[in-house]
């Protein structure tokens, strides 16, 4: 691979530019973020624990409980007195959406009452017919629309769909409570939208159809598939880096989730803090993600490889790095959900499936980038070299491939892909300081499923896992879908460690 070596100086210069850009943008981003850090008690240190509520318990699990054991348990009762909770900061929320059937247009100005857990508040739907209601605690809530506020010409709500009981699991935000007002509401065939699903469900929530319960099942099924495929594509972007880094260096990178979060945060800095257009945010995420990958490899991983540090200690270093960076994000960006400007209106509606513009674009972008990755891996010298290194490092080195260069490129590429994945996930679901780390094991599961060390395996594994998880919620509680994915990973490791693609066993 002589050419790879020859192009190195030029590449180096390019990389240098990346890094510089990264530092500048990083400083730009960090400063306002620090100044504007929101104040809610979620990150309160244990010393001030009496105010600590659920978020601090999940954020600082052991710690918060340990240093102030007496204050560990805050009953929901203390939260009941509160007025309407800000849905952005409340750990759980219900997204109410009232539409009119023929046009599927939102109905504004309706009175909605949410009752449960000793909490009761009344809201009014906004111009889109939506209102998001922050909740004091997980549990069952009753959502009631005051039918007298529905304009008579629109019709009425189907019997049995109002009021509605919505089950909210812990940390579920935006649990949908969708209502359709129709002219012919009297027929009881319409089924209420099933409630408890997390984030993506909102984007592809099945609307009640007139086809009876059988049709409703297929509607749900179809929407789960779509949700699963879109999410799988986004997951794949993050998984490829993990898989290739494992393949070329043997490292199980526990800090990869932080690369994902990093990209999303950069997009947040560009889009929300600097008010730049969304596409600049996406490019920033890709470029800075790649730069971050490069810096990480150069400052940390390459020196450690040179020292011949073993794989297990490397794994522990990556854990330390993950912990430190994750909380550095929390330090600068706070513990709350961050939003990147997004247009919530439906862009593409096919039958029961309704997608926003960003959902469609995210999926398309992910697909295009994945094809690009496939092209690079299959057709370019660098890609072939990368596969050779992943296949057999010693042999690749022996045949003249600059292994270190290839590994560096993989870190850059992996970082860029993770960054893109982060920003797309932020658009598709939500963004927080721990968005990436919360999907880390999912990434591992996807990579394992597809076959460790293979880029295509990572893609297939991500898609299969994501669709499986979404379909699994048809039979198991929603909050167990993550556990289900982990069970699948364990089974694969036990019975088919080479992954579902059935590549020959990789023993190294």
């Amino acid at each position, binding site marked *: 691979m002589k050419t790879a070596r020859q192009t190195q100086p030029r590449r180096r210069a390019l990389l240098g530019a990346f890094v510089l850009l990264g530092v500048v943008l990083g400083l730009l981003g960090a400063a306002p973020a620090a100044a504007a850090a929101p104040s809610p008690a979620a990150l309160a240190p244990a010393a001030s624990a009496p105010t600590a509520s659920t978020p601090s318990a999940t954020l600082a699990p052991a710690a918060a409980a340990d240093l102030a054991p007496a204050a560990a348990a805050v009953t929901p009762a203390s939260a009941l007195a509160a007025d309407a909770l800000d849905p952005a900061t409340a750990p759980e929320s219900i997204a109410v959406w009232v539409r009119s059937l023929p046009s599927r247009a939102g109905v504004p100005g309706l009175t909605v009452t949410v009752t449960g857990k000793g909490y009761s508040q009344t809201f009014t739907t906004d111009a889109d017919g939506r209102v998001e209601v922050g909740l004091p605690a997980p549990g069952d809530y009753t959502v009631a629309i005051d039918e007298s506020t529905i304009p008579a010409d629109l019709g009425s709500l189907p019997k049995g769909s109002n009021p509605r009981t919505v089950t909210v699991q812990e940390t579920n935000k935006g649990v949908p409570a969708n209502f359709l007002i129709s002219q012919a509401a009297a027929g009881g065939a319409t089924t209420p939208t099933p409630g408890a699903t997390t984030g993506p469900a909102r984007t592809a929530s099945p609307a009640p159809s007139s086809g009876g319960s059988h049709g409703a099942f297929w509607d749900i099924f179809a929407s789960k598939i779509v949700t699963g495929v879109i999410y799988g594509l986004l997951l794949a972007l993050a998984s490829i880096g993990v898989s290739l880094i494992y393949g070329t260096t043997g490292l199980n990178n526990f800090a990869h989730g932080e690369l994902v979060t990093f990209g999303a945060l950069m997009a947040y800095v560009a889009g929300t803090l600097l008010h730049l257009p969304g596409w600049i945010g996406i490019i920033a995420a890709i470029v800075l993600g790649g730069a971050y990958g490069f810096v990480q490899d150069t400052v940390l991983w390459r020196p450690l490889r040179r020292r011949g540090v073993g794989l297990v200690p490397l794994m522990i270093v990556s854990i330390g790095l993950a912990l430190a960076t994750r909380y550095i994000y929390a330090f600068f960006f706070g513990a709350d959900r961050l939003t990147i400007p997004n247009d919530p209106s439906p862009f593409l509606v096919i039958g029961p499936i309704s997608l926003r513009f960003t959902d469609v674009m995210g999926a398309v972008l992910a697909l295009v980038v994945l094809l690009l990755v496939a092209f690079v891996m299959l057709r370019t010298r660098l890609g072939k070299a990368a596969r050779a290194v992943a296949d*057999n490092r*010693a*042999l690749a080195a*022996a045949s003249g491939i600059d292994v270190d260069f290839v590994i560096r490129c993989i870190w850059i590429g992996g970082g860029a892909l993770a960054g893109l994945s982060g920003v797309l996930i932020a658009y598709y679901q939500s963004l927080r300081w721990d968005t990436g780390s919360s999907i880390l094991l999912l990434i591992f599961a996807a990579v394992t499923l597809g076959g460790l060390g293979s880029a295509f395996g990572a893609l297939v594994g991500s898609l299969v896992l994501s669709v499986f998880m979404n379909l699994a919620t048809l039979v198991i509680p929603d909050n167990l879908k993550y556990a289900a994915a982990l069970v699948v990973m364990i089974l694969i490791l036990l019975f088919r460690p080479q992954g579902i693609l059935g590549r*020959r*066993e990789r*023993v190294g």
Partner: protein
Amino acid sequence: MSELIAGEPAPGVAKRDPILVADHVTRRFGGLTAVDVEHVEIPAHAITALIGPNGAGKTTFFNLLTGFDKPNTGHWTFRGEQLAGVPAFRVARRGMVRTFQLTKALALLSVIDNMLLGASNRAGENFFAALVPAAWRARDAQLTEKADELLRKFRLDTKRDDYAGSLSGGQRKLLEMARALMSDPALVMLDEPMAGVNPALTQSLLRHILELKEQGMTVLFVEHDMHVVREIADWVVVMAEGSVVAEGSPETVMSDPAVIDAYLGAHHGTDLGTVRGRLEVAEGMESELVRSEVEGEAAGDGR
């Protein structure tokens, strides 16, 4: 050395007093057949050398016989007992102890602890009895005495309390052999005992191996160096491409044109060809052990 055999010298010839008899042993890695041994017998109380070009399947055959790898087909008996499917640690307990091509000194254990691991201390190795020193102290002292004696013999007594990781490559080979002898095995299987040993140590290693025979043990060893084979082996088994292609006394085997061919044939293509070929084997292998050994070998060649 025709007194060892009960018939005409030929591949798979019957021995008068075989300690190990293997039949139809095959091992495939993907499409590649690494071992395909129809029939072979190892004579008791003698030193047998297993030779063959790189990639002939010698180490894989070793791994199969000692339970470190599972064959696709085949069975074999050791002292008349079936051994196929017996896990590696049971094979060792039955008196068939091996060493490894890449030495496996337990680096962060002292030399004497390495030695003590070689023997069995039934009480002390039991979780609950281990908590009662009285149950295992006496046996431990007895074993320590034996270990010290072996260490003196192998000139490792000055290193007794050092970490095994601090030993030189040759000393590790010695330690591994001495450790294997702690259990008084009936058959000692040495995988390239001379590889990486400095020439000054070679002679003493050879002497030790000859001594083992004098003490009534059987030795089976894999070796590349024909001088070594000529010097100590009573019997030579030649493998090529997974099969036994020749057997006989060192003199007859080394003048056998088929053997010379097998060797020359493998060495004709020289470096890169052989490196590639072997790494392909390694990739398909399912035993990490085998792979690391082959790769280590390749890395050694590459330098």
